[in-house]
C-alpha cells in the first residue's frame, strides 16, 4: 500500500515537517513493514507560463519546431523551443526553467537547439510523471486549471507530494486504505485521527433490484453479504480528473483513466472499499449475484474472454454475467468516454470466494487484494455516498434516488478476555486501564466491570477472533519494545541423538579426508532416474519448477555428478566432493496413501496419525562421494596420483570408520558403474552401499573424464549397524613377531577372501594381517598371482617363540591351500 503524505495528512495530524522516514518509522512500530518510497522526482523552478507568441520553423530533419515566447511572470517573456504542435497562443502551460529537474533524472538547462537558445522547456504530462499521454504538451486548460504566469506548478499539480509504501500483512485488509494507515499512524504516535468514513453524509437509494442467490456457498459462506448501489445521472464525460487527484493516484500506483473511474479508485484507496461503476444505460434490469455455471463465459474489462468455474461468484443482470464479483468488471457495462449515467456498486464479498477466483483466473486486482483480506462491511454505504459526492462535485452529475441497500452482515460476537491475560502471554504487566484503553483505541467496544471483559472488535478488524488476537493488539499498541528479555530454563537435555552426532562425524570425517561438502537439489530427470535406479518407483513433483527434473532422487550420485560438471566447467579439474543428504524411497506407487486430510485445531486419533505417516514415502540419510582428476596433485619430488576406485573405497571406509563400523568389500554390479570396477560394501553380510567408477560411456556422454570415482552409503543403516556398546579388548604388551607370507592362487580369487581364510587359519595369535603385494608375471604361472601378506602375531600371556609364530602362519597357509589351492 502506497500512501501519499498529503492525503494522509487530511485524516491524521502529521507534523508539518514529517519526512517519509518519520512516517515509515512510526508505521513499522505498529507492524507495517517499510517497503519503499515514491516521489515524482521533480524539482523547481517549474512554473505556469502563458504562450505569448510562436513561430513555426520547419527543420531539415522533417520536424517542425515552434520558437515560442512564453510569459513566466518575469515581465519579459522567455524564448523556448518546443517540438509539440498541440497548443495555441494564449494557452497556459507548464514551463520547466533552467535549474529544474524532471524524472529520469533529466536536468533542465538553457541550451542551444535548432538555432535558438531555449531558456527552459514546455512540459508534457509524461515528462512531469503525471501520466503516459505523450501526444504533445500539457495544456492546463484541459485540466481546468487557470493560474497566473509564474505560479509554482509543483504545488499546483501536486508534484510536491510523496508517498511511503508499506507491506500489509494478510490479516489486516483495513490497512489497504488511507483510512486504515492514518489510524495506524495515530496508534503509533498518538496524533489525532479523523475517520474519513464518518465525514460522509450517507444517503441510501431505492428502487434498484438487487438479489443474492448463492446456491453453492464456499465452505458454508454465502458469497455476498453487502450490496449497495447508488446512481448519478448527467455526468459530463469531458470533465478532467483534477490534478491533485491525478497526482495522488499516480503516487498510489494507479493510472488515471477517466474521471468516473478515477473517483471510484480514489474512494477505494481512501476508505478501503472496492467500488465498481456501471454505465447505467448498458445495464439490463436489476442485478443478481450468483455462482457461475461451469463453462459460462464473461468478457472482462481487460478484454479477455474468461471461461468461468462453478465456484466463481458473478454479478449478473438480465443479459447475463456483467462482472466477476470482487475481481474485475465486465466489458459489456464498462464506463466509456460517453457515459453520462452511472450506477455505483459498493459490495462485500466472501474473502475465500474472491481469493479462489482471483487465483483461478490469475487476476490479482486492487479489488481482489482487498476482499481477500477482508473489507469493513460497514463502510460500503459511506463509500458509495462519497463517490456520488465526488461525481456531483467534479463530474457535474446529479444524484438520483435510484439505488439499493442489501446488508446481511451478522453482528459481531464479543470475545471474552481476562484483564490479566495480556500479562500472562506477553510478560508485561499492562494493568487493567491500559488493556481497556488500548482496545478502545483500536476501535473495539469493551464491557465488563471486573476481571472479565467482553470485547467487540471493530467491523474493520475481521482478524480479531480470539483472546490472543486481542492480546497482540495490546502488545502492539503499547509497543513490542516494552517486552523484557528473560532466558527460560529448559529441563536438562541429552544432547544430540546418536544418529545426529554420527551424521556430523561422517561429514567431518570426509571433509578431514579431503572432501568438499556440497548440497545438491534433490530433483532429477526421468533419464537420470532410469540410469541410476532403473525400474524403481520415484516420487514425482506435480508442479515442478523445471518439468525436465520432476522426480525426487533415490540416490545422491546424480547430484554430485551435476555439481562436478559445473566445477569442471569453471576450470576446477581435480575434485573430491561429498554430500550428506536424504533420498526418497517410495516402495510402490502410492502404497498406503490416504486421500484425506484431518482438520486442524484438534488432535487426530493415533490411528489417523499412523495412516498419515504410512502415506509418506520412506526417506533415508545417505552419504555419497565423488572424485575425479588427480587425488594427489603432482608436486616436487612426487608424481600425481589420479583419482579412481581407491578414492571411492577410501571415502566409504572413512565414512564407516567415522560412525564406528567396519566395511567388507565384495565385487558386484551397479547399472551406472564400470562392470569391472564396482564394489558392493557390506556390514554383517548385508549390503549398505556401493563404490566404483562411473560407466565410461556415461562419463563420455556427460563430458566428464573417463574415470569418475563414486561411492554411496546408506547412512541410516550404517549408523544402526554400529556397536555403541563395544567391549574393549585388553591390549597385549608382550613382544610381537612379524611374518611375511606369499601365496600363489588363481587370479580370479579375491585377495580379501584369501586374507580372511589365512586369518581364520592363523587363529587367535594373529593380531593383524595386511595385503602388501599382488604380483603377476615371470616366476608365477599364467592365470595365477602371488599375494604377499604381512602378519603380526602376539600372545597375551607370553613372548612367542619363532617356532610358534611360524606355526600360526603355516596354519593359515594350510587352510588357504585347502580352500583355494594356494601354494607357497
Amino acid at each position, binding site marked *: 500500500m502506497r500512501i501519499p503524505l498529503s492525503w494522509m495528512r487530511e485524516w491524521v495530524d502529521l507534523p508539518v515537517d514529517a519526512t517519509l522516514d518519520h512516517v515509515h518509522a512510526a508505521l513499522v512500530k505498529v507492524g507495517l513493514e517499510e517497503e519503499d518510497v515514491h516521489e515524482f522526482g521533480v524539482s523547481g523552478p517549474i512554473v505556469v507560463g502563458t504562450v505569448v507568441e510562436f513561430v513555426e520553423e520547419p527543420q531539415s530533419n522533417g520536424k517542425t519546431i515552434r520558437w515560442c515566447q512564453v510569459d513566466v511572470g518575469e515581465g519579459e517573456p522567455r524564448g523556448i523551443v518546443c517540438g509539440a504542435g498541440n497548443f495555441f497562443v494564449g494557452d497556459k502551460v507548464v514551463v520547466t526553467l533552467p535549474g529544474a529537474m524532471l524524472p529520469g533524472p533529466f536536468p533542465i538547462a538553457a541550451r542551444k537547439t535548432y538555432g535558438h537558445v531555449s531558456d527552459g522547456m514546455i512540459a508534457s504530462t509524461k515528462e512531469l510523471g503525471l501520466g503516459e499521454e505523450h501526444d504533445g504538451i500539457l495544456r492546463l486548460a484541459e485540466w481546468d486549471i487557470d493560474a497566473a504566469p509564474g505560479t509554482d506548478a509543483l504545488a499546483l499539480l501536486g508534484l510536491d507530494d510523496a508517498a511511503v509504501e508499506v507491506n500489509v500483512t494478510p490479516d489486516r485488509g483495513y490497512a489497504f486504505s488511507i483510512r486504515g494507515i492514518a489510524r495506524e499512524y495515530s496508534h503509533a504516535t498518538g496524533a489525532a485521527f479523523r475517520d474519513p468514513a464518518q465525514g460522509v453524509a450517507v444517503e441510501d437509494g431505492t428502487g434498484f433490484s438487487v438479489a443474492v442467490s448463492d446456491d453453492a456457498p464456499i465452505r458454508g459462506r454465502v458469497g455476498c453479504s453487502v450490496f449497495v448501489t447508488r446512481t448519478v445521472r448527467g455526468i459530463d464525460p469531458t470533465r478532467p480528473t483534477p490534478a491533485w487527484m491525478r497526482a495522488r493516484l499516480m503516487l498510489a500506483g494507479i493510472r488515471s483513466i477517466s474521471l468516473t473511474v478515477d473517483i471510484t479508485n480514489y474512494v477505494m484507496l481512501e476508505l478501503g472499499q472496492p467500488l465498481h461503476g456501471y454505465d447505467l444505460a448498458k445495464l439490463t434490469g436489476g442485478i443478481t449475484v450468483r455462482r457461475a455455471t461451469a463453462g459460462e463465459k464473461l468478457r472482462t474489462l481487460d478484454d479477455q474472454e474468461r471461461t468461468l468455474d462453478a465456484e466463481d461468484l458473478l454479478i449478473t443482470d438480465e443479459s447475463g454475467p456483467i462482472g466477476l464479483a470482487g475481481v474485475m468488471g465486465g466489458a459489456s457495462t464498462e464506463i466509456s468516454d460517453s457515459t453520462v449515467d452511472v450506477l455505483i456498486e459498493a459490495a462485500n464479498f466472501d474473502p475465500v470466494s474472491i481469493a479462489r477466483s482471483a*487465483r483461478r483466473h490469475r487476476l490479482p486486482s486492487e479489488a481482489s487484494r482487498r476482499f481477500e483480506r477482508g473489507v469493513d462491511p460497514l463502510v460500503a454505504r459511506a463509500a458509495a455516498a462519497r463517490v456520488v459526492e465526488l461525481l456531483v462535485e467534479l463530474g457535474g452529475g446529479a444524484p438520483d434516488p435510484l439505488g439499493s441497500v442489501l446488508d446481511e452482515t451478522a453482528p459481531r460476537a464479543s470475545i471474552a478476555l481476562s484483564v490479566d491475560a495480556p500479562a500472562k502471554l506477553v510478560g508485561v504487566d499492562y494493568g487493567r486501564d491500559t488493556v481497556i484503553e488500548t482496545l478502545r483505541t483500536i476501535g473495539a467496544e469493551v464491557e465488563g466491570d471486573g476481571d472479565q471483559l467482553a470485547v467487540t472488535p471493530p467491523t474493520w478488524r475481521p482478524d480479531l477472533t*480470539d483472546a490472543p488476537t486481542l492480546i497482540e493488539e495490546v502488545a502492539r499498541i503499547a509497543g513490542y519494545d516494552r517486552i*523484557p528479555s528473560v532466558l527460560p530454563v529448559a529441563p536438562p537435555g541429552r544432547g544430540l541423538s546418536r544418529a545426529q552426532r554420527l551424521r556430523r562425524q561422517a561429514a567431518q570425517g570426509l571433509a578431514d579426508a579431503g572432501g568438499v*561438502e556440497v548440497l545438491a537439489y534433490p530433483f532429477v530427470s526421468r533419464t537420470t532416474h532410469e540410469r541410476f535406479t532403473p525400474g524403481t518407483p520415484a516420487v514425482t513433483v506435480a508442479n515442478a519448477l523445471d518439468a525436465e527434473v520432476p522426480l525426487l532422487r533415490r540416490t545422491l550420485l546424480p547430484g554430485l555428478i551435476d555439481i562436478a560438471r559445473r566445477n569442471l566447467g569453471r576450470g576446477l579439474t581435480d575434485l573430491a566432493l561429498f554430500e550428506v543428504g536424504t533420498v526418497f524411497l517410495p516402495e510402490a506407487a502410492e502404497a498406503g496413501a490416504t486421500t484425506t486430510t484431518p482438520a486442524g485445531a484438534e488432535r*487426530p486419533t493415533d490411528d489417523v496419525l499412523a495412516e498419515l505417516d504410512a502415506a509418506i514415502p520412506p526417506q533415508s540419510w545417505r552419504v555419497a562421494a565423488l572424485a575425479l582428476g588427480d587425488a594427489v596433485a603432482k608436486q616436487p619430488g612426487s608424481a600425481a596420483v589420479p583419482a579412481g576406485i581407491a578414492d571411492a573405497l577410501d571415502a566409504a571406509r572413512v565414512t564407516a570408520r567415522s560412525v564406528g563400523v567396519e566395511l567388507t568389500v565384495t565385487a558386484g554390479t551397479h547399472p551406472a558403474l564400470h562392470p569391472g570396477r564396482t564394489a558392493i560394501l557390506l556390514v554383517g553380510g548385508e549390503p549398505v552401499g556401493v563404490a566404483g567408477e562411473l560407466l565410461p560411456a556415461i562419463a563420455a556422454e556427460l563430458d566428464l573424464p573417463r574415470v569418475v570415482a563414486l561411492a554411496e552409503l546408506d547412512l541410516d543403516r550404517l549408523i544402526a549397524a554400529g556397536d555403541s556398546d563395544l567391549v574393549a579388548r585388553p591390549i597385549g604388551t608382550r613382544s610381537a613377531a612379524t611374518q611375511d607370507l606369499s601365496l600363489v592362487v588363481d587370479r580370479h580369487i579375491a585377495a580379501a577372501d584369501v586374507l580372511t581364510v589365512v586369518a581364520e587359519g592363523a587363529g587367535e595369535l594373529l593380531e593383524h594381517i595386511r595385503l602388501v603385494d599382488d604380483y603377476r608375471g615371470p616366476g608365477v604361472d599364467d592365470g595365477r598371482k602371488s599375494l604377499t601378506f604381512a602378519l603380526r602375531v602376539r600372545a597375551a600371556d607370553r613372548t612367542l617363540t619363532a617356532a610358534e609364530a611360524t606355526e600360526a602362519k603355516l596354519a593359515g597357509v594350510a587352510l588357504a591351500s585347502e580352500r583355494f589351492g594356494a601354494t607357497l
Partner: protein
Amino acid sequence: MSDPSPITEQAVAQAVEAALADISAAGDSAALKAARSAHTAEHSPLAKLNGAIRDLPGDQKAAAGKLVGQARGRVNQALAAQEGVVLVAEENARLESEAVDVTAVPSRRTVGARHPLSLLMERMSDVFLGMGWEVAEGPELEHEWFNFDALNTDPDHPARSEQDTFYIEPTSSHLVLRTQTSPVQIRSLLTRDLPVYVVSPGRVFRKDELDATHTPVFHQLEGIAIDKGLTMAHLRGTLEHLARAMFGEGAQIRLRPNFFPFTEPSAEMDVWQPNAKGGARWVEWGGCGMVNRNVLRSAGIDPDEYQGFAFGMGIERTLQFRNEMNDMRDMVEGDIRFSQQFGMVV
C-alpha cells in the same frame, strides 16, 4: 750384562708423538679408524713396547709398565676426544646435506571443507543444546496436515497454492515438500513429553526460481518451547541469547508486529549486528511469536495449561548477512571454491 731396555722414555715419547700427530690429523671416521689401528692395535709401536715389558728384568717392569701405560692412556684419550670432534662434524655435514626447501615439501593429504550452511546449522543448534534444548527432525517430504493444517494454516491460505508449494503426484495424496521445518514442531509436540524445548534445523522447499536472492531449496532453523508460563519475554530472551552467541555480546533483538498463522501474537525479528563490516546495523532475521492455541490443540495440548513460543530463521539469510554475501547462487551451486574459503569453520 743384559741388553739395554728398548723401553726408553725417548722411544715411548716418539710413539706417543707419532700417534697424537696422526690422531689430530684424522678428519673423518675412516682416518680416525686408521690412526686407531696404527697406534693402538696389535702391531703398533706402543703395543710392541707394551709387549716388551714382559721380557724385562723384574725390577724394571714396574717403571716401564707405568711409562707405557701412561703413554697408551694419552693416546686413547686423544682418540676419544678426536672421535667426538669427528662425529659432530660428520653429523653436521649430513644434516646440511639433508636440508630441504620447507616451502616446497610435497603434501600427502589435502583437507577438504564442510559446507558453511551445514556448519552454521550445527553451530546454531549447539547454542540451543547448551541450554538443554534438543534437536528434532522430521521428513522433508511431508503430509499436508503436518505442514499446513496442524499449523493453523487456512485451507485457502495463499502459501498453499501451487505457485508457492511443491505438491506430489497424485495431488490427492496430500503430500508436499515441506515449506518450513515447522511440521517437525508438531511432530515433536505429538511425540515428546511436555515440557518441550526443541530446535529443528533442516532443508525446506518453496517454489521460487533460483536467483541472487531466492532458491527453491533452502535451510531453516526453527525452535519451539512449550511449557507452563512461557511468555514473549522468554521468546525475546532466547533469541537474544542466540544472537549474542552468533554475533557477539553487543547483539540485540528487536521485535516488530507481524502476522503468521501459527503464532499469535506474532513478530518479525531484527537483530542488531554489532560487528557488521559496514558498521553496526539492524538486519531482518526471521519470524516468531507465541504458539497459536489451535496449533497446541492440533497436538492435543490444552492451551489453557501450556503455552509457549516458536521462532524460525533462514540459514542462507543468516549466512548472507553475517558473511556479506551478495549472491544466493554461490551457496547452492556447489562450486568448491565457495566451501573452501570457509574450510571447517563458520
